[in-house]
């Protein structure tokens, strides 16, 4: 049994720790992801599956993702939410690594888990991922592209030109899919084995656990149960309520993707109506206008008076002038 433990392959160790770690942190990360999506902080463009895998494997993709995004110009989506999500994922992954690795150390290695195990394994795995994943990405992209073009050119040969479209698609997909999958599985196994070696080297320095199997089971079982369950339940419920409220507050009321038939015309918002202000404004305007009317009427009256005066003068002048000499 002890020999079996010591001879455990690095791939088995890597898989035994990474797989549960990925899933342990995921529910918490997913809650934040949904919140950011509702807030419109991030958008995934047709690569949701890849984004999900990246988030699931964030203990190893956390540094690899920016390298792939910037260095290899391949991105999973847009928005500040993606960077924020991967930053939030760091403490969650450290915690998840700690919970899983402590159990693994006790159950599989029968060794006492050292202090700060979660943090140690997290930074080492993130570093391995940062170096290994961009290489894997590059190789897989190249292999897939080459395999597709090779298969396409193979089917351009006269001999295969008679193959119907549906059969051709499936055969082509089976060929290039198998090549790409084989290379991917091989590279993933190498990556997992690298992490496994790193975990084994950490375990070598740890002290052996002295308890019997039943006692060890109780220990790792209790490690997953919080000392104050009431507090944990209250905190969890509180967080759930806050997240739900934030979600409903951020959720758009109407569809963000309206159909052609149902696009609503843009309506400009009317300024708020304040009756007292409007009344004062109207009164001022009426006063101004009546003053203008008054001024105009006065001007008109003055002009008429001037005109009357001019007429009177002309009449008086006519009356005082000598009569015109009569024609013979």
């Amino acid at each position: 049994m002890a020999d079996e433990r010591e001879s455990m392959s690095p791939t088995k160790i890597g898989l035994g720790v990474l797989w549960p770690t990925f899933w342990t942190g995921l529910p918490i990360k997913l809650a934040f992801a949904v919140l950011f999506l509702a807030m419109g902080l991030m958008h995934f463009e047709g690569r949701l599956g890849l984004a999900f895998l990246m988030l699931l494997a964030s203990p190893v993709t956390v540094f690899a993702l920016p390298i792939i995004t910037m260095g290899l110009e391949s991105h999973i989506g847009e928005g500040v939410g993606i960077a924020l999500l991967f930053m939030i994922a760091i403490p969650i992954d450290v915690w998840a690594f700690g919970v899983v690795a402590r159990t693994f150390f006790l159950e599989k290695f029968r060794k006492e888990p050292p202090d700060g195990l979660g943090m140690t394994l997290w930074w080492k795995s993130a570093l391995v991922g940062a170096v290994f994943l961009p290489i894997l990405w590059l190789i897989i992209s190249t292999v897939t592209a080459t395999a597709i073009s090779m298969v396409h050119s193979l089917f351009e040969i006269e001999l295969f030109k008679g193959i119907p479209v549906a059969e051709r698609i499936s055969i082509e997909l089976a060929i290039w899919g198998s090549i790409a999958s084989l290379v991917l599985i091989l590279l993933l196994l190498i990556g997992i084995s690298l992490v496994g070696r790193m975990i084994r080297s950490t375990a070598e320095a740890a002290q052996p656990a002295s308890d019997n199997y039943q006692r060890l089971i109780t220990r790792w079982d209790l490690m997953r149960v919080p000392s104050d369950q009431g507090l944990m339940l209250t905190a969890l419920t509180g967080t759930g309520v806050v997240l739900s409220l934030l979600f409903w507050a951020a959720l758009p009321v109407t569809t963000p993707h309206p159909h052609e038939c149902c696009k609503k015309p843009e309506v400009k918002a009317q300024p708020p109506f304040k009756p007292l202000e409007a009344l004062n404004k109207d009164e001022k305007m009426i006063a101004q206008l009546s003053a203008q009317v008054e001024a105009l009427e006065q001007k008109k009256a003055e002009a008429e008076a001037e005109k009357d005066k001019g007429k009177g003068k002309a009449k008086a002048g006519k009356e005082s002038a000598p009569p015109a000499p009569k024609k013979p």
Partner: protein
Amino acid sequence: MEQPSIPSTQPTAIEKVIAFIDERVGLKQMQAKMLNEPVPGGSRWAYVFGSVLLFIFIMQALTGILLMFYYVPTADHAYASTQYIIHDVDYGWFLLSYHFWGSTAMVVCVFAHMSQVFLWGAYKSPREMIWLVGLALFGIVMGFGFTGYLLPWDQRAYWATTVGVEIMDKTPLLGDFMARFLKGGPTPGQMTLSRFFVIHVMILPAALMGLAGLHLFLFRAAGPAGPFRGTPEEIRAKTDYFFPRQIWKDIVGMAVVFASICALAFWEPVVLLEEATPDPGDYHPEPEWYFLFLFQLLRLKIFAGEFGQFLGAIALPGAFMALLAALPFIDRDPERNIFKRPIALIGWIVVMVSILLFTVSAIINREFLD
């Protein structure tokens, strides 16, 4: 001598209500039976799919009821009422998108649950009945997807149903009757919509509730199968009750599925095509994604012609389902470890890879059609 103070034993109002109900229905005994079930080998994430499926079904029922407040199941108003839900009802777009992606999640979880039962060898004696009822539940889930797809009454819905009913028509003996019964006329119309609606909201939910209850009853009667690996001592040492650990895992599984469906609703909300007409126009009819592999299979030359279509659409899937139903009676070997059952393991891989291959082929095929 001073008497020690006796604590008050007067029950609270809640305790009184609980005691009242317990006296009449045996609440505490029921609770103990439900929560204190031993899980051999302890709780596992692999066991969450059954509970998750129940959760998805409850959510589908809830969102479905809310959608029914606005949806009008008539050929004249189905499309307009669905557009109204998407564009005018507060959060209607989210409810509809959640309902749509919920159906996808249900199919994925049914596949995952069936795979887990198959790989764990949990269909073997004495759990044959659970497996058979599970297969019937699988058929009901597929029926939900098929009948629900028509209800928005857009081009996609109309033509997917037309193709589906035509495939059904090829079934010997019952096919013609089934196709005529479902369509209710020469082309899909009001009668088709009414019948699909009634099947979707009344018949299938009732059947699912009844069969799910029977499935759970049979499961409790036979007990959980437990892990397929490990010595009896190890399994005994790790054995735990259903509450709290397995329940906790189930809750986390439900939360993950809920969040995933929400994320999908944001990523790809439901957008309808044009209203259904008997003229497909530029639209290339195709079924929902979980029937795509079968649709692509029927495009192969080997399945051309009347007999070929019958072979691909009815005979092969029918034979496969019959094989699944007969599986617990054919495979009598008590060995449950999947790594010691090479035929089962290879068979499962071949089926999964084939479904994946033909589904992706159908997606690539769209480019050729466009």
